[in-house]
Structures are given as C-alpha cells and as structure tokens.
C-alpha cells in the first residue's frame, strides 16, 4: 500500500521535477556560455597587448625612436641658438641704454649747474620772486631730467638778462 502511494506521489511530481531540472540546466549553460565569452575576450585582449608591446620594444622600433630623438635634439639646438642670440642682444642693448642714461644724466646735471651759476651771477638784475621761481624750476627740471625744459629755462634767463 505504502509502495503504491509512493509511486503515485512520484508520478505526480515527475513533470515538476523535469521542469526544474530544465531551467537549472539552461541557467548553467547560459552561465557557461558567458564565462567562455569572457575568457575568450580576455585571451584576445592579452594577445593584442603582447603583440603591441612586442612591436613597441622591437629592435626596429627602438632604432627608429633613436633616430627621431637625435633629429629632435638637432632642431632643439637650432632653436636654442636663436634664442640665446636674442638673449645676448637684449643684454647688450640693456647695457648700452644704461650707459646712455648715465651719460645723459651727467650732462643734464652739468647744464643745471651752469644755469644755477648764471642765476647767481645775475641775481642783482633779477627780481627776487623771479630768481626764486627760476631756481625752483631749475631744481625741478633737474630732478625730472627734462633737458628740453632746462634749455628753455636757459633761453628764458638769457633773454631776461640781456634785455
């Protein structure tokens, strides 16, 4: 009786069991397929990397890079020469301007001193306010290093003194 009942139960559950088994098998196969795909992808990427590295470090590529490096160095040297010349020229001009400025300063000072001497020489002929004004202007133009203004001041003083 018990055996019959068991057989009956098995008969009832067999389709369900087969259904579950099919699904599990399908999932497993799908997983296996994806795994295989992934594995093949990794293998192909690794092969490609190996090939690229091999090509990069091959003797031919290395020699080619050496040639390009030397050519690049040559170009750099030529550019450097040009810029170094420019730099030297710039410093030369700077030095020259310094010399010129110093010279201009010395002569402007000499002119201002001469005006000062003339002012003192003709102090009696000049009204006191004008004398002081000329003196102030002379000092101001000397400080400003304004040679044109100093020359005009000198001319003004000469005109005033000589009538």
């Amino acid at each position, binding site marked *: 009786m018990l055996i019959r009942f068991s057989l009956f139960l098995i008969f009832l559950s067999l389709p369900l069991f087969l259904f579950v088994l099919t699904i599990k098998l399908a999932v497993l196969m799908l997983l296996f397929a994806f795994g295989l795909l992934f594995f093949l992808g990794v293998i192909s990427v690794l092969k490609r990397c190996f090939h690229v590295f091999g090509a990069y470090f091959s*003797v*031919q590529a290395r*020699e*080619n890079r*050496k*040639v390009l490096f*030397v*050519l690049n*160095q*040559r170009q750099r*040297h*030529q550019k*450097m*020469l040009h810029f*170094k*010349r420019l730099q*030297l*020229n710039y*410093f*030369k001009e700077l*030095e*020259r301007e310094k*010399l*010129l400025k110093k*010279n*201009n300063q010395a*002569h402007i000072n*000499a*002119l201002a001193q*001469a*005006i000062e001497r003339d002012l003192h020489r003709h102090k009696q002929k000049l009204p006191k306010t004008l004398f002081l004004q000329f003196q102030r202007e002379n000092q101001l133009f000397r400080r400003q290093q304004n*040679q044109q203004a*100093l*020359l005009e001041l*000198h*001319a003004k003083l*000469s005109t005033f003194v000589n009538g």
Partner: protein
Amino acid sequence: MAKIMFKDFLLNIINTIHTLKTENLNWKRTNQEQEAQVKQNRVLAEKALISELKKRSRQLKHELTLLQTQHDAELLMFKTKCKQDVKDYKQYLASLDQLKHSIQSSYTHLPEAVAFTIHHHAKYLLNEMWETTNFEEKMQREIQLIRFMSTVHEDARLYLEGKTKEVLPERTLKFIEKR
C-alpha cells in the same frame, strides 16, 4: 531512417574536413620552398633596415656633436662681438664728451646750453647710427657723425688760431639747423 540520414550527414562532414586537410597539406608541400624564401627575405629585409637605422643614428649623433661645437663657437663669437659693441659705444660716448670739452675750452664764453645742444645732437647721430640695421645706411650715418665731429673740431681750431672772430661755432650750428 532518420538515424541513417544523420549518420550519413556526419560522415560527409568528416570527409569534407579530411579533404580540406589533405588539400592544405598538399598546398604547403608544393609552396614550402617559396614560403621559406619569403620568410627569409622578410628577415633579411628587417635586418638590413635595422642596420641602416643604426648607421643613420650614429651619423646623426656625430652631426649633432659637430653642430653643438659649431653653435658653441658661434655663440662665443657673438658674445665677444656684443662685448666689443658695448665697448665701442662707451668709447664713442667718451669721444663725444671730449668733443664737448674741446669746444668749451676753445670758446671760453660759449653758453652751456649751446655746448649741451651740440653734444646732444652728436649723441642723437650716434644713436641713429647704432640703431640702424641696414649696413649701407649705418655707414652713411657714421659718415654723417664723423662729418659733424670734424666740423666741431674745425670750428674750435679756427677759433683757437684766431682765424674767426665769431662768438659762437656758426658752422656747427648751421649743421644742426640743416637737420
């Protein structure tokens, strides 16, 4: 029936594979020499290219060393030239100062403003000459400056020798006015 058909189908496939393999083997056997030749040629070409590249690299390195030496020498020369230029300019300024001093010592009553103007004009000519890049133009400016300086010296000399009674160096001032 289906079973027999399936079996025939499988046998056909296996036969096709075997035929293909045999054909491939035959082709390889026939073209073995040619294939080996092609491979050898490729290896030889690669080796030739590599040796050519090595040679070129060595040659370029040598050229680079020469270029570097040449550039160093050129720079050194340029540096010396720059130094000499500055020195020349300094000497020019000193000779212009001397010019001013000479005219002042000849014309004792010469106003400082006139001496200043003469000196300033000489300096203007000097700078004009210095800043010109064209060689011919530079020469012309130099000639102009020298002519101006000689006019000033001539004026001073004439005044000292008593050949002129003018209070001011008229020839020099005329020269400036012309400009």
